[in-house]
């Protein structure tokens, strides 16, 4: 379902944008305004991160946003309610992103059920490899949600096949080693990696980690299906306020008419 939605959108746009926010940072009001600005700027799909106290796969910018959101008192329930609100209000698909403990403590099946009720379409859980995911996969399937797994440049072809077999909706391809927020060199090295990902699956490929400007997105055109903008939008909000979001996103791709 999600994959088809994305493919349909690709008939208008060669490269789609998936953006990321940490819910409740700097506040839930601001989060809502950021989502609104992103949707207006033409983002095709969003990841909503539920903050966790131990986000080991995230770099300093997103880590800091996690901490601040928690300090401001955001709870899992509040985040799910926020997800429900934006999923009702805006006509794009929303994924949840969080670490496994958040789902585990909630009860994996109860969490999936709640996601489905909220109108969210799937989830990304970066510290849950497929080997540990039996319960999660069953719950996601039972509630018709897309479990999005991650590939990395060090993932072998054999393992890519295994991971993409259980992935639904889209595949998240991490561009490089390291955590979120560091620079990625968009060069031919990426080419062979993305070609390997492509060979492993028919699902849309989202490339994330370090995508920050028009040049990066241009590079990905024809190589990936979605460019993931994570840390950079948080930086934009921190530096320019919510007002900066729309022009930033719009500047990442040529206008639709072109």
């Amino acid at each position, binding site marked *: 379902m999600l994959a088809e939605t994305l493919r349909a959108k690709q008939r208008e746009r060669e490269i789609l944008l998936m953006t990321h926010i940490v819910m409740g940072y700097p506040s839930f009001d601001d989060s809502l305004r950021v989502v609104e600005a992103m949707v207006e700027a033409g983002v095709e799909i969003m990841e909503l991160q539920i903050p966790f106290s131990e986000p080991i796969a995230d770099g300093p910018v997103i880590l800091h946003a996690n901490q601040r959101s928690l300090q401001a008192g955001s709870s899992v329930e509040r985040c799910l309610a926020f997800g429900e609100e934006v999923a009702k209000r805006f006509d794009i698909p929303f994924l949840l992103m969080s670490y496994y403990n958040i789902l585990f403590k909630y009860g994996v099946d109860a969490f999936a059920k709640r996601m489905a009720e909220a109108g969210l379409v799937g989830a990304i859980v970066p510290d849950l*490899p497929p080997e540990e995911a039996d319960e999660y996969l069953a719950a996601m399937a039972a509630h018709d949600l897309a479990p999005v797994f991650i590939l990395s440049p060090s993932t072998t072809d054999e393992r890519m096949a295994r991971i993409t077999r259980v992935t639904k909706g889209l595949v998240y391809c991490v561009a490089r080693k390291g955590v979120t927020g560091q620079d990625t060199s968009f060069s031919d090295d990426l080419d062979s990696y993305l070609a390997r990902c492509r060979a492993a699956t028919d699902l849309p490929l989202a490339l994330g980690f370090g995508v920050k400007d028009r040049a990066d997105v241009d590079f990905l055109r024809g190589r990936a299906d979605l460019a993931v903008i994570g840390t950079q939008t948080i930086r934009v909000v921190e530096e320019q306020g919510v007002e900066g979001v729309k022009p930033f996103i719009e500047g990442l791709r040529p206008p639709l008419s072109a």
Partner: protein
Amino acid sequence: MPEPGYYGQFGGSFIPEILVATFEELVQAFEQAKADPEFWNTYLKLMGSYSCRPTPLTYAENLTRHFGGARIYIKREDLNHTGAHKANNVMGQGLLVKRMGKGRVIAETGAGQHGVATATMAAKFGFDCTIYMGEIDVQRQRPNVFWMERLGATVIPVTEGTRTLKDAINEAFRDWVSAMDDTHYVLGTACGPHPFPEMVTWFQSIIGLEARRQVLEETGQLPARIYACVGGGSNAMGIFSGFLDDDVELVGVEAGGRGLETGAHAARLASSDASLGVAQGYKTFFLQDDDGQMKETHSVAAGLDYVGVSPILSHLKETGRVRFSAATDTEVVDALSLTIRKEGLIPALESAHGFVQAFKEAPTLSHDDVIIINQSGRGDKDIFTVADAFEDPGWKQFIRDKAKEYDAR
């Protein structure tokens, strides 16, 4: 067939995809080392020539008389080079790093003992070394920071989160995912994703192997009980693993902090405050809230101030093989004081937790019984904390004078 890396329902390997290949390499290197008797022999030789092994088992005659019950023996891990059992794990992993051909090591540290041990190993083996340490622990354990830096390590204070051990572990993982090609993460305790709990326990099992042989030689009998403090669980697993199949009661002692009822503690297994969770790459009991966010913990001993605990110990608690209790900060300082006076031994604040419970139980046992306390480390590193706890006037004056001296320059 249990899955590899699982102990009952605990353990596992919850890691980001980017690290999967690195863990596969590590598991393979560890399995090869385990299967190769030469590796363990090299390890024993190294520990004998570099770190004072076998460490003695000391009869605490005065404490025994004082409590008038069981005969108290103390396993002297404080006599390891760098002053704690941490050296056992670190030198073992160092040998493994050499096998894997990597040139850089990183580590987290709480008390600083594991950091100093890792920096020492790196100096000896010629590795680059970076140590992550919570900002609060940097303040608590400044002398260890000094030594790590002298040993050539870069010490990075961690300013996010609760600024203690768990946050240092997170930062070490963040470093590792960027640099795993040439870097090994020397995790300091029997926690984290597979194979760390098993691997750290394997290296630390040298404590239990020696202690079992020594206590039989010395007393002709097995101990009735063994006491060990539990932070992540490595010294406890080390000594316990020598006696798992014996009729010996094993007692783990966690940080009771300001008292279990205050919530300011780090008792994951001895209190009912912890619940099952998944963080830092493994499944175990964590001190967390209903949402699954990790809580702040407290202990006078930085090395016990941690939200999670070895999945192997969680399992041994569930099966009833190990009993757990907690010691408060105040009890710990009292036990430390008594041990120094009676035996001339200076246990680390961490180790002193084990002494507290042993002292409570020794009088209830008979003189025919033997008990062993694992003195995981020496207390010199804690001089600032201990001097504060004792309100030592001479020490305070010394610090004031020293500060004046620096200011005058």
